[in-house]
Protein backbone atom coordinates (compact mmCIF):
# COMPACT_ATOMS: atom_id res chain seq x y z
CA UNK A 1 0.00 0.00 0.00
CA UNK A 2 2.63 2.51 1.07
CA UNK A 3 4.85 1.34 -1.76
CA UNK A 4 2.14 2.46 -4.20
CA UNK A 5 2.10 5.85 -2.46
CA UNK A 6 5.83 6.13 -3.06
CA UNK A 7 5.50 5.48 -6.79
CA UNK A 8 2.55 7.86 -7.13
CA UNK A 9 4.35 10.71 -5.37
CA UNK A 10 7.49 10.02 -7.43
CA UNK A 11 5.46 10.35 -10.63
CA UNK A 12 3.86 13.56 -9.36
CA UNK A 13 7.29 14.98 -8.50
CA UNK A 14 8.74 14.08 -11.89
CA UNK A 15 5.87 15.43 -13.99
CA UNK A 16 5.51 18.58 -11.90
CA UNK A 17 9.23 19.26 -12.39
CA UNK A 18 8.98 18.69 -16.15
CA UNK A 19 5.97 21.03 -16.36
CA UNK A 20 7.74 23.61 -14.19
CA UNK A 21 10.80 23.78 -16.42
CA UNK A 22 8.87 23.95 -19.70
CA UNK A 23 6.39 26.74 -18.89
CA UNK A 24 6.69 30.16 -20.47
CA UNK A 25 5.04 32.01 -17.60
CA UNK A 26 7.33 32.18 -14.56
CA UNK A 27 4.48 32.34 -12.03
CA UNK A 28 2.85 29.16 -13.37
CA UNK A 29 6.22 27.41 -13.34
CA UNK A 30 6.63 28.39 -9.70
CA UNK A 31 3.34 26.75 -8.72
CA UNK A 32 4.40 23.54 -10.46
CA UNK A 33 7.74 23.68 -8.67
CA UNK A 34 5.96 23.98 -5.31
CA UNK A 35 3.90 20.87 -6.20
CA UNK A 36 7.12 19.04 -7.03
CA UNK A 37 8.70 20.01 -3.70
CA UNK A 38 5.60 18.89 -1.79
CA UNK A 39 5.71 15.53 -3.57
CA UNK A 40 9.37 15.14 -2.60
CA UNK A 41 8.36 15.94 0.99
CA UNK A 42 5.85 13.07 0.83
CA UNK A 43 8.67 10.79 -0.36
CA UNK A 44 10.81 11.90 2.60
CA UNK A 45 7.98 11.11 4.98
CA UNK A 46 7.47 7.66 3.48
CA UNK A 47 11.19 6.95 3.66
CA UNK A 48 11.13 7.48 7.42
CA UNK A 49 12.60 10.97 7.62
CA UNK A 50 9.76 13.15 8.99
CA UNK A 51 12.13 15.93 10.07
CA UNK A 52 13.53 16.27 6.55
CA UNK A 53 9.96 16.32 5.20
CA UNK A 54 9.03 19.18 7.53
CA UNK A 55 12.18 21.10 6.58
CA UNK A 56 11.46 20.56 2.89
CA UNK A 57 8.03 22.15 3.26
CA UNK A 58 9.01 24.94 5.63
CA UNK A 59 12.23 26.07 3.98
CA UNK A 60 12.00 25.02 0.32
CA UNK A 61 8.29 25.35 -0.40
CA UNK A 62 7.95 28.16 2.13
CA UNK A 63 10.92 30.48 2.35
CA UNK A 64 12.77 29.95 -0.93
CA UNK A 65 9.65 29.89 -3.10
CA UNK A 66 8.37 33.06 -1.43
CA UNK A 67 11.66 34.69 -2.42
CA UNK A 68 11.00 33.66 -6.04
CA UNK A 69 7.42 34.99 -5.83
CA UNK A 70 8.65 38.37 -4.56
CA UNK A 71 11.22 38.70 -7.34
CA UNK A 72 8.69 37.74 -10.04
CA UNK A 73 6.26 40.30 -8.62
CA UNK A 74 8.96 42.98 -8.55
CA UNK A 75 10.08 42.33 -12.11
CA UNK A 76 6.54 42.65 -13.48
CA UNK A 77 7.18 40.53 -16.57
CA UNK A 78 4.87 41.44 -19.40
CA UNK A 79 3.30 39.62 -22.31
CA UNK A 80 6.20 40.28 -24.68
CA UNK A 81 8.61 38.34 -22.46
CA UNK A 82 6.26 35.39 -22.52
CA UNK A 83 6.01 35.62 -26.31
CA UNK A 84 9.81 35.59 -26.63
CA UNK A 85 10.00 32.56 -24.35
CA UNK A 86 7.44 30.78 -26.51
CA UNK A 87 9.54 31.39 -29.61
CA UNK A 88 12.55 29.96 -27.80
CA UNK A 89 10.82 26.64 -27.11
CA UNK A 90 11.04 25.12 -30.58
CA UNK A 91 12.54 21.60 -30.79
CA UNK A 92 15.92 22.66 -32.17
CA UNK A 93 16.64 24.29 -28.82
CA UNK A 94 15.70 21.52 -26.43
CA UNK A 95 16.37 18.32 -28.39
CA UNK A 96 20.17 18.43 -27.99
CA UNK A 97 20.37 18.96 -24.22
CA UNK A 98 17.55 16.48 -23.60
CA UNK A 99 19.24 13.81 -25.71
CA UNK A 100 22.61 14.23 -23.98
CA UNK A 101 21.11 14.15 -20.50
CA UNK A 102 18.96 11.13 -21.45
CA UNK A 103 22.16 9.26 -22.34
CA UNK A 104 23.62 10.13 -18.94
CA UNK A 105 20.36 9.02 -17.30
CA UNK A 106 20.45 5.63 -19.04
CA UNK A 107 24.03 5.09 -17.87
CA UNK A 108 23.09 6.04 -14.32
CA UNK A 109 20.07 3.69 -14.28
CA UNK A 110 22.23 0.83 -15.58
CA UNK A 111 24.73 1.44 -12.78
CA UNK A 112 22.04 1.77 -10.09
CA UNK A 113 20.33 -1.46 -11.15
CA UNK A 114 23.49 -3.39 -10.24
CA UNK A 115 23.28 -2.22 -6.64
CA UNK A 116 22.89 -4.95 -4.01
CA UNK A 117 19.35 -5.13 -2.73
CA UNK A 118 19.32 -2.78 0.21
CA UNK A 119 16.05 -1.39 1.49
CA UNK A 120 15.05 1.84 3.18
CA UNK A 121 12.72 1.77 6.13
CA UNK A 122 14.59 2.84 9.25
CA UNK A 123 12.78 5.64 11.06
CA UNK A 124 15.18 8.45 11.96
CA UNK A 125 13.71 10.92 14.41
CA UNK A 126 14.49 14.58 14.85
CA UNK A 127 16.27 13.80 18.11
CA UNK A 128 18.81 11.56 16.38
CA UNK A 129 19.33 14.21 13.69
CA UNK A 130 19.91 16.89 16.31
CA UNK A 131 22.37 14.77 18.27
CA UNK A 132 24.36 14.04 15.11
CA UNK A 133 24.18 17.62 13.87
CA UNK A 134 25.56 19.14 17.08
CA UNK A 135 27.88 16.23 17.81
CA UNK A 136 30.31 15.21 15.06
CA UNK A 137 29.02 17.80 12.58
CA UNK A 138 29.23 20.94 14.74
CA UNK A 139 32.03 22.37 12.58
CA UNK A 140 29.78 22.01 9.51
CA UNK A 141 27.08 23.99 11.34
CA UNK A 142 29.57 26.81 11.95
CA UNK A 143 30.64 26.79 8.31
CA UNK A 144 26.99 26.85 7.19
CA UNK A 145 26.34 29.86 9.42
CA UNK A 146 29.28 31.68 7.83
CA UNK A 147 27.96 30.74 4.39
CA UNK A 148 24.55 32.18 5.24
CA UNK A 149 26.17 35.37 6.53
CA UNK A 150 28.13 35.68 3.28
CA UNK A 151 24.91 35.10 1.35
CA UNK A 152 23.16 37.83 3.32
CA UNK A 153 25.92 40.38 2.74
CA UNK A 154 26.22 39.35 -0.92
CA UNK A 155 22.48 39.66 -1.54
CA UNK A 156 22.46 43.10 0.10
CA UNK A 157 25.37 44.30 -2.01
CA UNK A 158 24.18 42.83 -5.31
CA UNK A 159 20.56 43.84 -4.89
CA UNK A 160 21.46 47.46 -4.17
CA UNK A 161 20.05 50.11 -6.51
CA UNK A 162 23.25 51.87 -7.58
CA UNK A 163 23.66 54.43 -10.34
CA UNK A 164 24.98 53.22 -13.66
CA UNK A 165 27.28 56.05 -14.80
CA UNK A 166 28.09 58.50 -12.01
CA UNK A 167 29.71 57.44 -8.74
CA UNK A 168 27.19 57.20 -5.98
CA UNK A 169 28.08 59.83 -3.37
CA UNK A 170 24.62 61.21 -2.69
CA UNK A 171 22.31 60.44 0.21
CA UNK A 172 22.36 56.91 1.62
CA UNK A 173 18.65 56.53 0.88
CA UNK A 174 19.54 55.25 -2.58
CA UNK A 175 21.05 52.09 -1.15
CA UNK A 176 18.18 49.85 -0.23
CA UNK A 177 18.50 46.08 0.03
CA UNK A 178 16.05 43.87 -1.78
CA UNK A 179 16.28 40.56 -0.10
Amino acid at each position, binding site marked *: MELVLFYISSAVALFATIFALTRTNAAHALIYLIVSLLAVAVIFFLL*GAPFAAALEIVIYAGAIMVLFVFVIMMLNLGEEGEERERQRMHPAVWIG*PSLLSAILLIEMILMLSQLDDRH*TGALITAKQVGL*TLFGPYVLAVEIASMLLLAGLVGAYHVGRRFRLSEPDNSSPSSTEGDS
Partner: protein
Amino acid sequence: MEGVVIPLNHVLIVAALLFITGLAGLMFRRNVIFILMALEVMLNSAGLAFVAAGTAWAEADGQVIFMLILAVAAAEVSVGLGLVLQIQRRFKTLDMDAARRLQG
Protein backbone atom coordinates in the same frame (compact mmCIF):
# COMPACT_ATOMS: atom_id res chain seq x y z
CA MET B 1 5.21 5.46 11.92
CA GLU B 2 8.06 3.31 10.68
CA GLY B 3 9.53 4.02 7.29
CA VAL B 4 8.26 2.09 4.31
CA VAL B 5 10.42 -0.71 2.93
CA ILE B 6 11.36 0.56 -0.54
CA PRO B 7 14.28 -0.78 -2.59
CA LEU B 8 17.06 1.79 -2.34
CA ASN B 9 17.84 1.76 -6.04
CA HIS B 10 14.26 2.77 -6.89
CA VAL B 11 14.60 5.87 -4.74
CA LEU B 12 18.00 6.62 -6.27
CA ILE B 13 16.53 6.25 -9.77
CA VAL B 14 13.83 8.79 -8.85
CA ALA B 15 16.56 11.14 -7.62
CA ALA B 16 18.48 10.60 -10.87
CA LEU B 17 15.37 11.36 -12.94
CA LEU B 18 14.80 14.61 -11.05
CA PHE B 19 18.47 15.56 -11.38
CA ILE B 20 18.50 14.89 -15.12
CA THR B 21 15.31 16.92 -15.58
CA GLY B 22 16.95 19.81 -13.77
CA LEU B 23 20.12 19.44 -15.83
CA ALA B 24 18.24 19.48 -19.14
CA GLY B 25 16.26 22.51 -17.99
CA LEU B 26 19.47 24.26 -16.97
CA MET B 27 20.93 23.68 -20.42
CA PHE B 28 18.03 24.68 -22.64
CA ARG B 29 16.45 27.59 -20.77
CA ARG B 30 17.76 31.12 -21.32
CA ASN B 31 15.65 32.92 -18.74
CA VAL B 32 17.62 33.54 -15.54
CA ILE B 33 14.68 32.74 -13.25
CA PHE B 34 14.20 29.33 -14.88
CA ILE B 35 17.93 28.62 -14.60
CA LEU B 36 17.71 29.28 -10.85
CA MET B 37 14.67 27.01 -10.62
CA ALA B 38 16.57 24.23 -12.41
CA LEU B 39 19.43 24.63 -9.92
CA GLU B 40 16.94 24.30 -7.06
CA VAL B 41 15.58 21.07 -8.59
CA MET B 42 19.09 19.64 -8.90
CA LEU B 43 20.01 20.48 -5.29
CA ASN B 44 16.73 19.02 -4.12
CA SER B 45 17.31 15.74 -5.93
CA ALA B 46 20.78 15.47 -4.41
CA GLY B 47 19.15 15.93 -1.02
CA LEU B 48 16.68 13.16 -1.83
CA ALA B 49 19.56 10.79 -2.57
CA PHE B 50 21.25 11.71 0.73
CA VAL B 51 18.10 11.17 2.80
CA ALA B 52 17.36 7.84 1.08
CA ALA B 53 20.87 6.57 1.74
CA GLY B 54 20.65 7.77 5.35
CA THR B 55 17.48 5.79 5.99
CA ALA B 56 18.84 2.73 4.19
CA TRP B 57 21.85 2.59 6.52
CA ALA B 58 19.79 3.72 9.56
CA GLU B 59 22.10 6.68 10.19
CA ALA B 60 21.14 10.31 10.79
CA ASP B 61 24.03 11.63 8.68
CA GLY B 62 21.92 11.74 5.53
CA GLN B 63 19.48 14.22 7.02
CA VAL B 64 22.34 16.31 8.44
CA ILE B 65 23.81 16.66 4.95
CA PHE B 66 20.31 17.47 3.67
CA MET B 67 20.15 20.39 6.09
CA LEU B 68 23.53 21.64 4.89
CA ILE B 69 22.27 21.39 1.28
CA LEU B 70 19.27 23.46 2.38
CA ALA B 71 21.59 26.18 3.73
CA VAL B 72 23.58 26.18 0.48
CA ALA B 73 20.37 26.45 -1.57
CA ALA B 74 19.09 29.36 0.51
CA ALA B 75 22.38 31.29 0.21
CA GLU B 76 22.67 30.57 -3.51
CA VAL B 77 19.13 31.61 -4.35
CA SER B 78 19.31 34.87 -2.39
CA VAL B 79 22.46 35.99 -4.22
CA GLY B 80 21.09 34.68 -7.52
CA LEU B 81 17.83 36.60 -7.23
CA GLY B 82 19.78 39.77 -6.38
CA LEU B 83 21.69 39.23 -9.62
CA VAL B 84 18.37 38.73 -11.45
CA LEU B 85 17.21 42.16 -10.25
CA GLN B 86 20.46 43.77 -11.42
CA ILE B 87 20.28 42.08 -14.85
CA GLN B 88 16.70 43.27 -15.28
CA ARG B 89 17.67 46.83 -14.31
CA ARG B 90 20.68 47.04 -16.61
CA PHE B 91 19.62 45.13 -19.71
CA LYS B 92 15.80 45.40 -19.43
CA THR B 93 15.57 41.66 -20.16
CA LEU B 94 16.08 38.41 -18.31
CA ASP B 95 17.88 36.73 -21.20
CA MET B 96 21.23 35.23 -20.23
CA ASP B 97 22.63 36.06 -23.66
CA ALA B 98 22.26 39.78 -22.93
CA ALA B 99 24.48 39.47 -19.83
CA ARG B 100 27.40 37.97 -21.70
CA ARG B 101 29.94 40.63 -20.79
CA LEU B 102 30.66 41.23 -17.13
CA GLN B 103 30.99 45.01 -17.35
CA GLY B 104 27.90 45.26 -19.65
